[in-house]
């Protein structure tokens, strides 16, 4: 290959996007499509359930959990910024807060589901509403759990002192996923607790 004539452009910059970032964005695109299909099914099925309970009878709006999850997006952003500036302690602290906020969200959902399933006997097979509700919210919560697993792994590594400034890019790419999970919750919340709860037919 040495015989291909090198040109003046050899001195020019030749940079391409990072493959990690590109792949994460592709993955997010694919996941968005999966969520879109579930959201469409949810919207389509609003008010079609032939047996009770109705959303108004069973749903409790999880305001506190939502606030927790959405704030975790800010804390993870500040955490990665701290890492970029090589402030490892601040990174650790903010990362721990992110993890705690995420855990609170899962805990809130678990309590709520336990109440619905155990006390009110409302399950995924009860009615069409049960199917679409547990599927959509469950799909989201499973993504939160995957995200939390990643958060905890990185936290454990950071506690062991293995996370350095040079890992900024990988941590940053991971934070994209967490932001995505939060953004999806905004959509799911709107669909389930605003449109669905008020029985707005689409």
């Amino acid at each position, binding site marked *: 290959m040495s015989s*291909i004539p090198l040109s003046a452009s*050899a001195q020019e910059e030749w940079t*391409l996007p990072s*493959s990690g970032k590109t*792949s994460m964005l592709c993955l997010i695109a694919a996941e968005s*499509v999966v969520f879109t299909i*579930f959201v469409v099914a949810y919207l389509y099925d609003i008010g*079609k359930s*032939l047996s009770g309970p109705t959303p108004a009878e069973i749903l409790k709006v999880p305001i506190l959990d939502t606030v927790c999850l959405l704030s975790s997006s800010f804390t993870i952003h500040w955490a990665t910024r701290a890492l970029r500036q090589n402030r490892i302690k601040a990174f650790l602290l903010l990362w721990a807060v992110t993890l705690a906020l995420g855990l609170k969200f899962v805990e809130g959902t678990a309590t709520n589901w336990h109440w619905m399933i155990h006390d009110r006997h409302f399950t995924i097979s009860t009615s069409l509403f049960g199917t679409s509700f547990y*599927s959509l919210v469950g799909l989201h919560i499973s993504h939160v759990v995957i995200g939390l697993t990643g958060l905890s792994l990185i936290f454990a590594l950071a506690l062991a002192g293995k996370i350095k400034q040079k890992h900024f890019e990988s941590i940053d790419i991971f934070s994209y996923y967490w932001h995505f999970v939060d953004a999806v919750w905004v959509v799911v919340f709107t669909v389930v607790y605003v449109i669905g709860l008020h029985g707005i037919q689409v």
Partner: protein
Amino acid sequence: MYIAYGLLFLAVGGAEATIMRIQLALPEMHFVSPEVFSELFTMHGTTMIFFVVMPILFGFANYLVPLMIGARDMALPRLNAFSFWMTAFGGLLLYFSFIGGTGIYGMGSAPQITWWAYAPLTSRAFSVGHSTDFWTLAILISGVGSVGAGVNIFSTIACRRCRGMTLSKMPLLAWLNWVMAAMVILGISPLTAAQIMLCIDRYLGGHFFDTQAGGSAVIWMHFFWIFGHPEVYILVIPAFAFASEIIPVFSRKVIFGYPIMVAAVLAIAFLSFSVWAHHMFAVGMPSYANAFFVLSSMLIAVPTGIKIFNWLGTIWRGKIIFATPMLFCLAFLFQFLIGGLTGIMLATAPFDWQLNDTYFVVAHFHYIIVGGILFTVFAAFYYWYPKATGRMMDEKLGKLHFWLFLIGFHMTFDFMHVPGILGMPRRIYTYEASRGWGIWNLIVSIGVIFQILGVGVFVYNMVYSYLKGEPAGNDPWDAWTLEWSTSSPPPAYNFAELPEVRSRRPLWDLKHPEDPDWSYE
């Protein structure tokens, strides 16, 4: 590995098709039972789409894309291995249903749900036992593998191009595979979502597709075809990619209208996400929905037509070399055109109401998948085999393969249109002699014999040439893209020194330093 895996399943899927054609060759045959026939067409469709054509195309993309963009490997080699094993495991799981599915007589039983698996056939009430579970899990798992492969191909092209290869200097094959990868990411995911819903319905007692609880069987159709139609283009765009590389080399001319070719494929990709419900005209949609899908489906013929004209423009006044890869590409042009035209016929809703679910539809999509895609895949085998093995494939055997397969193809799929127009429905296991479909079905089935002979010659040629073929050298076709600059077979790291390009045809620049391409582009 992808390619070998695809070829293995090609044999299996082909055998299933052959058994079906034996059954249908004469009226009132009893070669297989109706149940087995239903299993056969379910497995044939699923196998050919998910476990033959897609793995082969991913295999070619994996092999060729890094070579053509001057990269050492794919961007994410570990994800690559993961995707392959997911796909492979999916295929094995599907075929395990023959053993593990509950059937009568203590035998296994494959799913009998057709490849698009409409509800409520897939519900527990109608699909007793586990064969449908094997089917849905197989598709789910291989879908994850496909998305992984798509992400990998996309990132490789975005992030691993060699110095100087701007987007406008990329070989068309790379461009088209890039579009294909984006479509895999966006197009396979709806199917994955729908399969998750089906699993919820089957395992957790959900009601997504259960009309008795207010669910909807039609929504499955929508979700399936939102995947299903982009899928057709996911399969055919790599075929376009092969044609776009092979036709210029054997016409000794640059591709005609490179920017338009790229624009056309982007238009096809974009439009293909808005045509899915043309598979559902007979469901009974509102007339404005029918009108929309008729128009969007017809619109897609425009960029497709542009591509055909550009290939013809490339051949026009070229010094054509009728080597085997070129023969397959020329047949592709002709057959793809006809397949496209019957597609426009079927895209017209009233026409579709007449012929929906007849053999006319079967003939149409086989014209695209066999006549369009499989022909270019054969062309790609003949064209890149020397690069992969260092030996040429035998030309005489290649031409014999071409003619046998061409005759077989036309006997089978040309004459398949006729019983369709006469009203023969698809997926029937037999028919009465008085219907007058007998002679056509006999011709169709005889065509299969020629196709099998052709593929037999092809397999023999691959083995023979691997052992005794002429040494190929680095650049047997006097081609222009980067893969021909390295040795045949290429080393594991592809290029000893990463190349740098200044035009779309770097090897032309190298061979003709007095008249390089970059002074024109």
